[in-house]
């Protein structure tokens, strides 16, 4: 049973949902981000947020996956001030929607002044509404950007145990753990983490406050990254309890602080949800731990993501 805590399912096909369900992914979280190119109007932002709170949730339910999301103004689009101001005005309307588990992805891209301004304002919003935060760390000048993100969070008085630092690597993880934040790793070929490296991370740092996600989106990425990494860890002799934390229990605990994501959602969905939103996976009904027959269902021979 896996939880993929970072997926842009809006860019994925129904085949992906089927394969994820077959591989044991029971729930996914869709953080609000850009779409590979920046939006230019607040109207498209509104439709996007409605889509990830609405149709995408419904679509996932058809395949037996529970779908959650985060809402926020991402750092890339924060550099368009007119857009950013308009988005800040509508964000409070979305932050309390059902299944919104955090404010995110927020943080830095190029670490500009505008990025900094809207990062801080959204940290305040998260504090006001009692929501966890998902932080996108920059690809360029990563280490400095990661440290700066954490400093700013501290400055605004947020509890680090409510904040997930995402897209970590070997260079950033120690500082993130030392300061009490959650350290997430996106298993994403070419630009982020490979999963053989992830196995080494868990071997070295253990499983406390560490978890992995796929960050699958419109680029070359793998919606099975979490189950594949779990299987790779299993073969490498990582204890099952640690695998469970890294691929399921930790993200559930972190985002569960929102009160909007609970294990019962997929183990024993309330009748209202079953009637309206969740029509998929009958093996999950009735409060029983789902039995995934073969751990490698649909994963193929080669589990590596480099």
């Amino acid at each position: 049973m896996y939880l993929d805590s970072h997926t842009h399912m809006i860019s994925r096909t129904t085949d992906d949902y089927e394969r994820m369900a077959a591989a044991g992914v029971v729930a996914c979280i869709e953080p609000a981000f850009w779409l590979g190119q920046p939006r230019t109007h607040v109207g498209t932002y509104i439709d996007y947020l409605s889509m990830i709170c609405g149709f995408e949730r419904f679509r996932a339910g058809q395949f037996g996956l529970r779908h959650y999301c985060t809402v926020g103004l991402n750092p890339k689009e924060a550099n368009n001030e007119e857009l950013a101001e308009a988005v800040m005005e509508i964000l409070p309307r979305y932050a309390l929607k059902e299944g919104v588990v955090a404010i995110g992805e927020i943080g830095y891209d190029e670490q500009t002044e505008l990025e900094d301004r809207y990062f801080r304002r959204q940290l305040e919003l998260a504090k006001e509404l009692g929501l966890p935060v998902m932080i996108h760390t920059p690809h360029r000048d990563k280490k400095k950007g990661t440290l700066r993100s954490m400093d700013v969070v501290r400055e605004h008085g947020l509890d680090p145990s409510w904040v997930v630092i995402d897209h970590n690597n070997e260079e950033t993880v120690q500082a993130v753990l030392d300061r009490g934040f959650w350290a997430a790793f996106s298993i994403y070929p070419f630009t982020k983490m490979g999963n053989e490296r992830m196995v080494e991370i868990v071997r070295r740092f253990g499983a406390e406050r560490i978890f992995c996600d796929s960050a699958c989106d419109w680029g070359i990425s793998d919606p099975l990254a979490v189950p594949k990494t779990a299987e790779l860890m299993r073969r490498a002799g990582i204890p099952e309890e640690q695998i469970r934390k890294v691929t399921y229990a930790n993200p559930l605990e972190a985002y569960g602080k929102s009160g909007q994501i609970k294990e019962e959602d997929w183990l024993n969905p309330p009748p209202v949800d079953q009637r309206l939103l969740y029509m998929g996976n009958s093996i999950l009904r009735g409060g029983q731990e789902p039995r995934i027959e073969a751990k490698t269902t649909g994963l193929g021979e080669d589990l590596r993501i480099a």
Partner: protein
Amino acid sequence: MSPSERACALLTRWVVERMPAEAAAWFHTQLAAVASAIEEKPLYLALGWAPRRLGKADLRLSPAELAEAAALRPGFDPIDWSVDQAARVALVLASFDGDPQRFKERLETLFRTADIGETIAFYRGLPLYPAAELLVARAREGARSAMRPVFEAVAHRNPYPKERFDEHAWNHLVLKALFIGTTLDPIQGLDERANPRLARMLCDYAHERWAAGRPVSPELWRCVGPHADDAALEDLARVLETGSGEERKAAALALASCPRPEARALLARYPELEGPIARGEIRWAAFAQG
């Protein structure tokens, strides 16, 4: 009290009677804040908090309460509403300040940023809103939804479409119901609003399904029977010859609703169906899918 105030009061009473004192007090406070608000923010926040503070349990209205619903407004049928849905509709009603145009615009804005649960609640509220004539375009939007529970919020147990939809919109609502695989029986006004154009659209649709080797819902024939032309009678004859047990029953029921003598003659060839129909043993409600 105005009709919308009476509706708001009834929904509020149902919700509050099911709540512990603290949640009930919270809800009363929100309603008061929304009713006196100058800006929109209290409404957005209350709508967001409602399921968290009040829960999402089924309302499970008693027969007496269902009678109150019917007395409030003909056709109002909240038999499968949940607590949060009733609360959200009550909050929307509480925001009405007597200006129908402003109410319509507010509702439009709410729909534009609604999540699925809110969308369903807002559509279910259609029969209770003031300025019903201003909401037709919004209701038609819901009847085009690809999300089945959203479509059903407009189409099922809701008197709004039969009262407000023109023939074109009505016909597409029925066709869409079949298209997304939901049942027709809970659509109010199904028989009274049957018409020749709809009968023709449905027969064309049945032919498309047959050509593709896909099953045809037995319920489809319900709206064909009363207005069956010669071609439709041929289709019904085909179903009676080659259809499954359920399909044959439905075709026979359709023939029984057709005033033309040819239909009577055709049905008379199947006494094993004609008899039970005459005795009221075969009914459309039995074809409704779960």
